[in-house]
């Protein structure tokens, strides 16, 4: 059992150096890696947005807000997250229902909630943090690995918001939120037999999803992935163009601001979801390798934080958040390079827009909180 030190004077008790970073509750290594990513991202964005400084400024402001949010979240003790998890979850579910009833949105999807007096927000975005928190809260109440009924109940906690988000409809976010919860269940120690069984179930249910859940545009995206040339000026356009942009970059790229695909407006969404194609075209394979290595270092640091966390709740939450970050990278780069269907998933901390940058930095705030709020282990 974990003893709570009400004074939170944990640094000295572990014999670690009491530095400015522990006072600020920030992890300097992780922070430097993130800043490196964000600054590089702004340069790529400047090119991807066709030299529109306003876009870069807006993104920088968003980063600023995100860093403040991160700093704030990092000050909270992980115990606070645990206490608040069920209530945040409840509030999130209410928010998702409210979006379905009274939400606003564009392009046939309701994602936003406008409450007078508050800025517009997307409850589904917050659920990317809250769902793993709630799942970790539930599963870490008991001994691990969890029993079968607890696994099922934990998955229920995950499936409820997923279903509500699918109804918006927003398949991409729903899967990301769901995966964040599933990671918790995996880290909690669910048996390999069950995992195998789930995979089997998914492969059986995939055809059912195809016929009953997926919408026409989603099916089209999958079909297009399989054969982009079938519709080169329609749905296949994005994939052909982004692959062309990436491929023509070569080893060292065409140079910053010199990309032809993006600047000649062949590449759609060149500053949002497809920004990695701009990077690949202008900085080549070396640039992509640098980006992937930077991402890997961030993931490595986060997994280290997870492993060294002191209680099960923190471990499960940190591990799940790290893997969600990884999932973003995988889905986005996989999509842009033509390995996965086109799903609206941004490249973390590089793509322009949305609240994703702020959510991500809040998640890193949680990780930093876990890293810096250490206490002496009783017994």
């Amino acid at each position: 059992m974990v003893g709570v030190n009400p004074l939170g004077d944990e640094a000295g008790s572990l014999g670690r150096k009491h530095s400015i970073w522990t006072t600020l509750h920030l992890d300097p290594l992780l922070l430097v890696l993130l800043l490196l990513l964000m600054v590089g991202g702004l340069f790529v964005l400047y090119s991807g947005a066709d030299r529109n400084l306003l876009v870069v400024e807006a993104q920088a402001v968003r980063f600023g807000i995100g860093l403040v949010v991160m700093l704030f979240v990092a000050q909270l003790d992980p115990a606070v997250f645990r206490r608040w998890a069920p209530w945040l979850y409840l509030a999130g579910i209410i928010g998702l229902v409210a979006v379905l009833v009274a939400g606003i949105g564009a392009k046939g999807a309701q994602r936003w909630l406008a409450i007078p007096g508050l800025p517009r927000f997307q409850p589904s975005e917050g659920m990317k943090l809250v769902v793993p928190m709630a799942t970790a809260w539930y599963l870490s109440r008991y001994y691990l690995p969890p029993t079968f009924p607890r696994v099922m109940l934990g998955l229920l906690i995950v499936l409820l918001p997923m279903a509500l988000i699918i109804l918006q409809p927003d398949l991409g976010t729903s899967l990301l939120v769901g995966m964040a919860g599933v990671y918790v269940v995996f880290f909690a120690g669910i048996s390999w037999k069950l995992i195998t069984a789930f995979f089997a179930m998914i492969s059986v249910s995939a055809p059912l999803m195809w016929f009953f859940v997926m919408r026409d545009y989603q099916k089209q995206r999958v079909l297009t992935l399989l054969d982009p040339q079938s519709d080169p000026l329609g749905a296949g356009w994005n994939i052909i163009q982004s692959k062309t942009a990436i491929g023509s970059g070569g080893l060292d790229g065409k140079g910053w601001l010199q990309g032809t695909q993006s600047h000649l407006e062949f590449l759609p969404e060149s500053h949002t979801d497809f920004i990695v194609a701009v990077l690949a075209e202008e900085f080549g394979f070396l640039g992509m390798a640098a980006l992937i290595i930077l991402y890997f270092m961030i993931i490595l640091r986060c997994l280290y934080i997870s492993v060294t966390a002191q209680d099960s709740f923190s471990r499960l939450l940190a591990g799940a958040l790290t893997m969600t970050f990884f999932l973003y990278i995988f889905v986005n780069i996989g999509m842009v390079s033509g390995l996965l269907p086109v799903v609206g998933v941004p490249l973390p901390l590089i793509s322009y827009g949305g609240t994703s940058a702020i959510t991500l930095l809040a998640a890193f705030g949680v990780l930093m909180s876990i890293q810096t709020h250490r206490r002496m282990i009783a017994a």
Partner: protein
Amino acid sequence: MAWGEFKDTAGERRLFQRRTLVMLVLVLLVLGGLLARMYQLQLVEHEIYTTLSDKNRVQVQSVPPPRGLVYDRNNLLLAENRPVFSVTVVPERVDDMPATLAGLQDILSIPDEDMTRFERRLGEYRRPFEAIPLSYDLSEDEIARMAVRRHEFPGVEVTAELVRHYPHSELTAHALGYVSRINREELQRIDSVNYAGTNYIGKSGIERFYEDVLHGTVGYQNVETNARGRILRVLERENPVPGEDLQLHLDLRMQRKAHQLLEGRRGTIIAIEPATGGILALASVPSFDANKFVTGIGVEEYRELSTSIDKPLFNRALRGQYPPGSTIKPMMAVAALDSGATTREKEIYDPGYFQLRDGGRRYRDWKRSGHGWVNLMESVAESCDVYFYEMGVEMGVDVMHRYLSAFGFGEDATLDVAGALEGILPSREWKRTNRNEPWYPGDSVNMSIGQGFFLATPLQLATATSLIANRGVWVEPRLLKDIPGDRPVEEFLPEGTHKPLELKNPDDWEYVVDTMEAVMHGPKGTARRASVGASYRMAGKSGTAQVFSLEEDEEYDAEEIRERLRDHALFVGFAPSDNPQIAVAVIVENGGGGSSVAAPVARELFDTWLEDLPAADKHSLIGQASTGDER
């Protein structure tokens, strides 16, 4: 305890570590897979995608609108568009730039300047795959040679564009102005969308003033191009809206006549149709070939033009500021009569000089012996200076300034004549600001005969003369006569702002016109020789402007003074005097006497406009009628 079960903390930690290891392996595999995918796309299949990236592109291209044409009043073409072939280079598609340039130099004659400019552009920022022009205006031979050897030069294109051409280049250069390549400052100012495909912009004259009207609206086309950027097919097209055509008041035949009359001299002619304010002729001689400025004039050639002592680039008609001399006397007569400074009857004795006070400085009359007793009519007809010296002192600078302002001096009174200067209409205030001195009575003496500080442009003189011809009704000078289409021409012209000059006794206008008639037809009229044999009555006033001022009593010998220091010969006038069809201002620089040199020029213009051209029109009408309905 919230979770009343036994927890194996160390065991849970080990479990988590194992699971994390699994995830770490997954992360490594996936990121490694993504990196492998990049390796595949960027290194293994690089060639495929580079080719894809370079070729078979669907591009949006701008289609520049053809610039509006300019016609004279008889619909003769003054400015047209002619296809010009240029060589452009897309550096991204060139494998070996030095070799390509060397190869091109073998088959084309590329001036060093063009080569330098090209190399400079190569270093500057531009959009990827933007073509850089290398050589303009290829000859037929060069086009043919390029057509044969084009395949040797990937990335090099021969492009055709419509370029302004002035078929009567020197005749119309000063009247129309010209277009030339858009420069850096203009690039900041113009609407970059509408000028997306346009390389030329009006720099002066009509071309500049009506730039918006002449330019038109840009069109677009989506085209599919091959690897070398050559258009394979047009997928979609939105046509440009061509610029509006302009019809000017200018009469090419008058313009030609004016240039003939000034041939071999330096000078300027402005002819205005008083009823409409339309400028019939605007000549400034010597002139220049405006076509050279369109595609870019060579540095050497430009230096020659701009440093020539004859100033061919200088638009004397609009920007030449001359002392008006005696040509100001009819306007002064109007001022003196209406202000009450004199009457038609009042006589003054002219001993050959004027003194503000006894024993003071003598202001000489041009006639050393003096005109004796003269009234206003005789003073204008014989150009008696002393009469006007006294009027100038009598009226004072304020009254003169008020009346001369009403005649349009000291301002640009034109509607659409770009670049017209204001001259100097001196006043007390002007002298205090510019000379930091009070106004002396002697200044009024000089001003009364159009000397001293007073400067006017030929266009201003023609405008003021036109106002007398119109008996005080203001019609601002203009070039634009019509724009074909439904919209009235007034929509394109700025609005006139001048109120008519109303005299206390409107009959004074007729009297002043009579004095100007006496100049031409009177027994002692200074320009009577210019009216010999005319079938109509004309009104006019000659003038002589000193190039440099002579000291009092200094002897003046035209023969001894170098030609360029000789007086300017001036003349203003209109005809017929009772129903004016044409008003002119003529200045022959260093021509000598206005009545002997400038007046005959005006007479020729009158004859051409009133007799020769109507006769020619009649003849051509008869000719057309006899040849049937061919046109």
